[in-house]
């Protein structure tokens, strides 16, 4: 459970940093009048904050899965599974998707609607291709005899990739909606915000995938071992 404690510590630091700016030591009973409200004139859109909170929840979810992974790994029946080379390509596709989405965001901000639309479509297609690639990876593994129940490492691999895939499906639904909305209408303030949110979500899911990939390939273990040695 150390992993999740580290995650909690990060969240706690963010919350503490934010609270520190909220004048928690002020004496509200002495302050009458509206001038004590120091919020900025241009508030951050609620959707942005909403996404940030949601990503914290998703982060907690995957961190807990990873905690469980490390705890289960300690038992004697653990045997890592060989990762199909296919996954490298998938990782590249997801990274491509993330980059094009970021590009779409920049183009939308520069008001190059046509370019933004094209890159949205490319990002969507790449996201879809990633999912298909993951299915191929599953098939390659299961036909090589690495079934869900044959070892705990396999179980974790299938479960975590499925969990990640489901989050990508949800992201694709949102991305699809934004793409459709911007297709025959000029990209206005709302659509720009939506594209930006999709890009943030996509970067986050890419980061989650990179962590999971490092976990499955065993590098994460080396890092953890290193940390353990440094600590003891």
């Amino acid at each position, binding site marked *: *459970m150390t992993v*999740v*404690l580290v995650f*909690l510590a990060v*969240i*706690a630091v963010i*919350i503490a940093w934010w*609270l520190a700016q*909220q*004048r*928690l*030591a*002020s*004496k*509200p*009973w*002495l*302050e*009458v*009048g*509206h*001038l*004590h*409200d*120091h*919020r900025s*004139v241009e*508030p*951050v*859109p*609620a*959707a942005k*904050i*909403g996404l940030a*909170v*949601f990503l*914290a*929840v998703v982060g*907690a*979810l995957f961190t*807990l*899965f990873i*905690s*469980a992974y490390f*705890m*289960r790994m300690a*038992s*004697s*029946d*653990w045997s890592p599974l060989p990762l199909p080379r296919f996954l490298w390509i998938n990782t590249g596709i997801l990274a491509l998707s993330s980059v094009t989405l970021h590009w779409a965001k920049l183009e939308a901000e520069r008001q190059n609607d046509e370019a933004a639309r094209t890159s949205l479509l490319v990002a969507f297609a790449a996201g879809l291709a990633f999912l298909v690639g993951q299915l191929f990876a599953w098939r390659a593994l299961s036909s090589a005899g690495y079934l*869900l*129940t044959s070892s*705990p490492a396999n*179980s974790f691999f299938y*479960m975590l990739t499925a*969990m990640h895939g489901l989050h990508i499906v949800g992201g694709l639904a949102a991305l699809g909606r934004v793409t459709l909305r911007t297709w025959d209408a000029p990209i206005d303030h709302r659509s720009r915000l939506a594209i930006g949110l999709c890009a943030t979500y996509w970067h986050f899911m890419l980061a989650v995938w990179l962590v999971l990939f490092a976990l499955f390939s065993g590098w994460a273990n080396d890092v953890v071992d290193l940390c353990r040695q440094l600590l003891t």
Partner: protein
Amino acid sequence: MVDVRSGIGEAVPPAEVEDVELYHPHSWWTRYVFSQDAKVIAIQYAMTAIAIGMVALVLSWLMRLQLGFPDTFTFIDAERYYQFITMHGMIMVIYLLTALFLGGFGNYLIPLMVGARDMVFPYANMLSYWIYLVAVLVLVASFFAPGGPTGAGWTLYPPQAILSNTPGGKDWGIILMLSSLIIFIIGFTMGGLNYVVTVLQGRARGMTLMRMPLTVWGIVTATVMALLAFPALFVACVMMLFDRLLGTSFFMPAIAEMGEQLQYGGGSPILFQHLFWFFGHPEVYIVALPAFGIVSDLISTHARKNIFGYRMMVWAIVVIGGLSMVVWAHHMYVSGMNPYFGFFFATTTLIIAVPTAIKVYNWVLTLWRGNIHLTLPMLFALAFIVTFVNGGLTGLFLGNVVVDVPLSDTMFVVAHFHMVMGVAPILVIFGAIYHWYPKITGRMLNEALGQLHFWITFLGSYAIFFPMHYVGLVGVPRRYHDLGEAAFVPESVHSLNAFISVAALIVGAAQIVFLFNLVWSLRHGREAGGNPWRATTLEWQTPETPPPHGNWGKELPVVYRWAYDYSVPGAPEDFIPQNQPAPGRVSHEAAS
């Protein structure tokens, strides 16, 4: 007086808060059923939670009948008894308390108290309720599924939860239970995002964090904790579903059942316990923190006095919220963990007593020389303080490893947690309903019926749970269908058990009075007016009662002061609403 720089009283236009684009309902269906109005969603949440809570109440009756009068009711066999225990616990903790405090009171009070028109994501808010309803229906479905609901205990510990001798283990029971929890968590996340972001971004002009009523502080801190803790339950449920349905071995060790070796091997039941209690302990405070907040407001309003140590109360809520995320393993002292871990978790557990004690002192000091009105909400608030102190003190016993080990899994633990997170929060819920019912419906609840309800519930729950401590100290284990002829169980325990059961039946029946009151007062209650308790917080200052869609009419309120200006010297009345401007330059000069 220092730091009164801006007593200037002219009203200013509410400019800074982004007005939510409201979806205006056009038909009966979108107004009352598929409504995006937080107030309607709150009532839907509350009614569903109370309805499923009544089921759990009946289950507790059945359990008490068996414990008080063993061998009398033959239809309560061991298997059914375990199913009743499990469903009673799960429903009460998650589907009643969590849903009612956060989904019910959170939805109703947050937008009104911070001066917003609605939640920031009304559509997700509506989905949140309907997904919650689906979760409840899936849960109810398990009563009718072949094999009945799961009987694994509310903690659902593997491996027994999915073995065939546990009721529902190899049938539908456990599958429906886990699915229902997963659905609940998805729905809750949608609502929880709303509660947090509304408090962050939806506050009216002038509503700084330190001017928020403690109710909002309690609810939003609990929501943040729930958003971080519920994923642990989600992970545990998903992994157990994999074990049960697909044959993986996340939690299942190599195990033989009825002389037959199962296909599982190598899994770790302790892993489940960690995940479960990583959620399970914050859950206690997810229920307690909103109760703390609400009780602070009830006491301040009905004692006509500002809350004592407001800043300390806020800090205590935040500190309790933070600490309670790192105490989970005190539920696992007997799981064979490293003694150093036990020491760590015992320490964090006992440290929580400090901010909690601060809160209790502050409530008492708020009452000190206050102008106490013994209204129904106040009675319930006072009852809460007493009950919470009782339950909290036994918690200090159980937090110590050496005391916990012999008491673990006895009725003492059952008595402890029913006092501290069963009776105490429920008393707050009742108090809060008596307090805010006039705002929700425009009419007061009947006072005489309320008094009857209060005294039976308050005294009755002590009749139930005080003797139970003794039963536990004698060593009577929890979760036993039948004590049989155990030599260490004296005759007095059997008489006590019968007494407890009779008390439980009476207290349960008293809730019918409450439900009747809710319905009867809807038409026949005394007209309440907009602010019957003469309270300061914004929800009592709405132009109409009950507040219409959009809450505030044309203009959002502007907040000029904190939430506890009661009995201010020199003020014409004994309360000053939060949206009342300062009386102008006169006070400005007087102050400086």
